[in-house]
């Protein structure tokens, strides 16, 4: 077999992980690999994984930054379990990531980084590359990425340290060759990003990228090359999207469908900040954004905007939710529309700010004083954040109440291809406002939905006062004991009534069987993959992933009744299980992971196997 006729292997899907120091540019090459794969027509899902520190000490284990992508010619639901290929830019990256690399997997290492000092920082007593077992267990490809980059850029006017910095693109180029990825999207990206301002930087990175690609072509470093056919996707216009971007566009779209001005007010917090950043860049859509002085102010500004006739939206993560609790209560008490986005991260307290978790469900359910539920909507995939935001907008404006939209860090920064919907054909949202001329009783309710109507400042003849004190139907303050009980019950019933507006719950699989896997939010991909595989083996397993956590769908009880056992996997200690068991008095089986990382499909396969 000649060097040029290496094995070209057709595969359905593959998982690649890039790992290096947090200053090595792993996130950018991961994003580029993603764009290139999307361009190649593959379905995909990504998982960026980086430390909370912007630059942890170089070369150390806590400083390792990683980016994993699964791409394939079939539907890809998750970023994948174990990587089939690992690019490790230094010993620390190898140490952190090697345990997860699949046996026989492709292991690309930058030999230049495996020097005594770096080995010591990673806790290696000896150079692991010298261990013959490594090459036996994995397809080891040793490349002096740093020196090759310098050589490739010998003619570049950049300083030596700047040349070295291009090594991530050389590594990327090599993986492009291995996986037959197109170079054009990355070259276009570099030219757009640096071409005008720093053309020599753009050219150096492009050169490094090409050098990496040719390295694969002209050497025998890697024996196998892989082809992944285009995914058989529906015709349409596609783009790559991450959860927070999709959420931004969903908010814009929802406000447009409702004919409302959108005012977004936030305070920077990981991983929600990019929602504020994204909307701030859309001022030409008429969107107003306020960077408030703190989390409390952020929701207060949003509430003021809703009171004045806009739709106020705020976004945060767990610590911010705690601070917003009193205002969520006032919004619910005054029955004004608002969306509170909680992009969940590992808690409690500061917790794991850059890792994912589903820890805020019960906080969203109960995190206010008094008895006053809030509708809760959860997004299930990065692109689904668009539709979840629209659904939150619908409930907030049609029922006049605050809606908590639960997203997750895993969705917020994870990407997938998205078939762009026809915006004009999305359903209208009908804000519940008094018709000018109609008699106004501020807390008079629609007999069916129990929603009240709003009148805004500036509407002549509709002057009225609202506030946090208990009130009667007229909005007047009332300390009458029976009125308080009546109003409390009405506010609870109103949220419950939202269930009447929900579509039938989607069941993946049969309506009845041995086991129902019941989840919510961002675990949808892993649950669907695991359940589908188990079904392919002939087992009577189905899954439901809830979009609405409050109110729960009216048909959920009937669905639960159709199964012998219910397994509830969650990235927390059992919060949905707590709600399901208390509401339906039904014993369920927990499966919990609290590691700051999403479920792997294998973990769920095992959990399902253990229960059928």
């Amino acid at each position, binding site marked *: 077999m000649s060097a040029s006729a290496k094995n070209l292997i057709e595969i359905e899907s593959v998982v690649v992980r890039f790992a290096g120091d947090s200053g090595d540019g792993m996130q950018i090459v991961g994003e580029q690999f993603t764009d290139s794969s*999307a361009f190649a*027509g593959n379905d995909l899902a990504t998982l960026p994984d980086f430390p909370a520190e912007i630059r942890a000490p170089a070369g150390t284990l806590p400083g390792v930054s990683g980016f994993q992508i699964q791409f394939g010619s079939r539907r890809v639901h998750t970023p994948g379990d174990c990587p089939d290929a690992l690019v490790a830019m230094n010993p620390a990256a190898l140490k952190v990531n090697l345990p997860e690399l699949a046996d026989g997997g492709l292991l690309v290492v930058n030999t230049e980084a495996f020097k005594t000092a770096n080995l010591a920082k990673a806790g290696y007593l000896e150079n692991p590359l010298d261990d013959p077992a490594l090459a036996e267990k994995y397809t080891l490809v040793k490349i002096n990425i740093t020196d090759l980059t310098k050589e490739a850029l010998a003619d570049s006017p950049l300083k030596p340290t700047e040349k070295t910095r291009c090594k991530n693109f050389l590594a990327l180029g090599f993986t492009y060759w291995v996986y037959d990825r197109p170079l054009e*999207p990355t070259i276009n990206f570099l030219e757009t990003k640096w071409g005008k301002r720093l053309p020599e930087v753009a050219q150096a990175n492009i050169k490094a990228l090409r050098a990496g690609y040719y390295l694969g072509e002209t050497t025998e470093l890697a024996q196998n090359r892989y082809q992944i056919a285009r995914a058989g*996707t529906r*015709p*349409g*216009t*596609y*783009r*790559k999207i991450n959860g927070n971007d999709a959420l931004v*566009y969903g908010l814009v*779209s929802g406000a*447009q469908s409702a004919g409302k*001005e959108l*005012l977004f007010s936030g305070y920077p917090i990981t991983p929600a900040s990019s929602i504020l950043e994204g909307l701030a860049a*859309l*001022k*030409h859509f*008429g*969107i*107003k954004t*306020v960077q*408030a*002085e703190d989390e*409390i*102010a*952020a*929701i*207060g*500004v*949003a*509430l*003021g*905007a809703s*009171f*004045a*006739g*806009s739709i*106020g939206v705020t976004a945060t993560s767990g610590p911010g939710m705690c601070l917003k609790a*009193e*205002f969520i209560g*006032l919004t619910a008490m005054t029955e004004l529309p608002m969306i509170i986005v909680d992009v969940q991260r590992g808690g409690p307290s500061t917790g794991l700010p850059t890792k994912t978790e589903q820890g805020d469900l019960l906080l969203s359910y109960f995190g206010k004083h008094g008895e006053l539920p809030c509708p809760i909507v959860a997004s299930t995939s990065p692109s689904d954040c668009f539709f979840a935001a629209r659904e939150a907008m619908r409930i907030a404006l049609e029922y006049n109440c605050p809606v908590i939209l639960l997203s997750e860090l895993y969705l917020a920064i994870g990407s997938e291809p998205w*078939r*762009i919907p026809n915006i*004009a054909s999305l359903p209208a949202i009908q804000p519940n406002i008094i018709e*000018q001329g109609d008699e106004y009783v501020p807390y008079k309710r629609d007999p069916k939905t129990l929603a009240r109507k709003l009148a*805004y*400042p*500036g*509407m*002549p*003849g509709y*002057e*009225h*006062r*609202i*506030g*946090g004190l208990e009130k009667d139907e007229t909005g*007047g*303050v009332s300390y009458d004991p029976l009125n308080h009980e009546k109003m409390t019950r009405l506010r609870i019933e109103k949220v419950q009534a939202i269930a009447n507006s929900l579509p039938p719950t989607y069941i993946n699989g049969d309506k009845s069987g041995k086991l129902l896997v019941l989840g919510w939010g961002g675990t949808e991909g892993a649950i669907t993959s695991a359940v589908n595989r188990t079904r392919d083996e002939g087992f009577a397993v189905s899954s439901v992933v809830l979009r609405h956590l409050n109110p729960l769908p009216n048909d959920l009880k009937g669905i639960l009744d159709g199964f012998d056992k219910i397994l509830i996997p969650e990235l927390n200690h059992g919060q949905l299980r707590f709600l399901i068991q208390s509401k339906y008095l039904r014993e369920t089986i927990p499966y919990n992971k609290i590691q700051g990382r999403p479920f792997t499909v294998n973990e769920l396969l095992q959990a399902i196997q253990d229960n059928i």
Partner: protein
Amino acid sequence: MSQEPAVASAPLTKKDFVTQNDVRWCPGCGDYAILNSIQKTFPELGVPKENFVVISGIGCSSRFPYYMETFGFHTIHGRAPTVATGVKVANPNLSVWMVTGDGDALSIGGNHLLHILRRNLDINILLFNNRVYGLTKGQYSPTSSVGMKTKTTPMGSFDHPVNPIQFALGAEATFVARTVDTDPKHMVETFQAAHAHKGTSFVEIFQNCVIFNKDVWEDIYGRGVKDDQILYLEEGKPLLFGKEKNRGIRLNGLDPEVVTIGENGITENDILVHNPSSLNPLQAALLSQLLHPEFPTPLGVLKSIQRDVYEDCMDGQVKAAKDAKGQGDLQATLAGAGSWVVE
């Protein structure tokens, strides 16, 4: 509703701003006089009634919106500036009035007060200062004097109090004024000036709590002492006070001092002239340091300067973005760079 034009053409009167709700402040509370003065001020401002919004936090003073026949929002403790900001940003045409107290604004809400003042939204803030927590029944407040004995300070407070005027000046408020609940005429004039100012107008109102801090301001505005204890500020006029208007404030180096015209060769030319529109922050800072009992207490507008207004800047950026990029088109944005078509 069909007679809208007729309604609009009828001039507003005080009665239009009185609600049917029973006012539930304690008999003799200074809040009644303030409410009365606001209800007298509003009809004269030329603002359509439906454009007034009164927003409050929590406390005795924060019950205010319930007694005003306007749009009103009684929010939560300390956070009224945030809600007021949202209202004004969402609809800059509204005339937004925020009512707060010393605890609401300067203790639990201190952070928000700082930020609303520096942002300079066109909002009027009325801070009722009675130097005590009234609604929670008499604990000391952030403006209470050192030594004040309350249920939470049985041996006397040792908290150094906040000076509301200095706080506002420190936050670079563009309009800072002070008035008193015993002088309706002065209140109305001050509220009118606050309304006329484009930007955040901060008005401290000395207010008497008859139950928990009775006569707290009596040494300043009491019948027998006020001529000697109050310095009425008028733009372009010398800082003179006293029954005979013969005492004044002179600058000795950087220190103010009280002098008497005609004594030791002092003439009116020696007296500092009030210049609230000075861009030199020392002017207003100097007035804020005229503290009882060494000095008369200044009433009126201490500072009034122009600076960009937050909501106008925001609208300006929205317009500039539309001018530069055209009205946003979501479909086109989503299908922009990086998208691909599957046939």
